[in-house]
């Protein structure tokens, strides 16, 4: 038991190094890390899923696969775009659906053992958050013009002397949206996978202790059953988190678009 615990602590301390991006190969001075490789794999999977579903479009889809993908698109249209943006939501649906499907497929790819999720790398989530940030700011600027957009940041009805202070606070909270969008997704994916890894290490450490430490000691192996049950439960939770994070990213982008394009 003691040896298993100390081995577990030792293994767990070296865990963070496994999640560091390391260069797989470089093309012309650009270092390609393993996360970038998985990013491109996710690209290909998204393309295959969406194009495969769109190959034979029918009014009433009989194909189960295209029905499923259409349900996802319908979900984004109804629950994300229409509910949150409201008036004039139609032109934002393709952007939101792209974000939703891409993040969802990245997250789900990462759940398959041996695979990595590219949303577990901060550079990827920065890029996604920056795309969303630029998108809603461009639509806000297009709708109100520069000064009008800056004015809508401050809610109407604020008394005169307080307005600059409130405006500054709102401006700050608008700017850190890019940070929160990026770090929320990154933190959730990285932390979730680390928890899975810790439980997996604990399971194997205690099992090894029971089976291969000289005498066959079944009592020492009992904690590994508990760890394994926890691992399975956490995996189920991670499946939920993979969906929720994609949904939250899409719905927050929709909220930001709503705030930027409708005066409040």
């Amino acid at each position, binding site marked *: 038991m003691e040896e298993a615990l100390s081995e577990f602590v030792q293994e767990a301390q070296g865990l963070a190094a496994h999640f560091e991006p390391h260069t797989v190969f470089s093309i012309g001075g650009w270092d390609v890390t393993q996360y970038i490789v998985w990013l491109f794999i996710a690209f290909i999977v998204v393309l295959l899923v969406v194009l495969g579903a769109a190959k034979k479009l029918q009014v009433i889809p009989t194909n189960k696969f295209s029905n499923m993908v259409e349900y996802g698109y319908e979900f984004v249209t109804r629950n994300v775009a229409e509910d949150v943006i409201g008036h004039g939501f139609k032109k934002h649906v393709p952007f939101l659906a792209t974000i939703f499907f891409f993040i969802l497929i990245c997250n789900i790819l990462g759940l398959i053992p041996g695979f990595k999720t590219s949303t577990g790398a901060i550079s990827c989530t920065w890029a996604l958050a920056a795309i969303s940030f630029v998108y809603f700011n461009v639509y806000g600027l297009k709708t109100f013009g520069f000064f009008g957009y800056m004015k809508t940041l401050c809610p109407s009805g604020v008394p005169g002397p307080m307005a600059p202070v409130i405006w500054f606070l709102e401006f700050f909270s608008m700017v850190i949206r890019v940070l929160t969008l990026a770090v929320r997704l990154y933190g959730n994916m990285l932390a979730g996978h680390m928890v899975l890894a810790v439980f997996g290490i604990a399971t194997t450490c205690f099992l090894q202790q029971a089976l291969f430490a000289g005498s066959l000691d079944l009592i020492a192996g009992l904690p590994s059953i508990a760890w394994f049950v926890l691992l399975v439960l956490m995996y189920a939770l991670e499946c939920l988190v993979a969906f929720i994070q994609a949904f939250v990213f899409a*719905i927050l982008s*929709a909220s930001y678009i709503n*705030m930027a394009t409708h005066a409040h």
Partner: protein
Amino acid sequence: MEITLALAALKVVGYGLAAIGPGIGIGIATYGLCVSAARQPEMKGQLMGYFFIGAAMSEALALLGLVLFFIG
């Protein structure tokens, strides 16, 4: 060595402290959403938008704590 260890430990404690407030805040926001959606289910779609904005705002504090944990 000990100072580095103490700093690492303090970072974790700091992040834990930073997560208390947002945890309570998101709990209150979820409570409000559940109660109001139970009273007026047809408003649920609209309320979800407000809920996510509020939850994102309070979660931003916890995320700032997480960032400080990494860079501090």
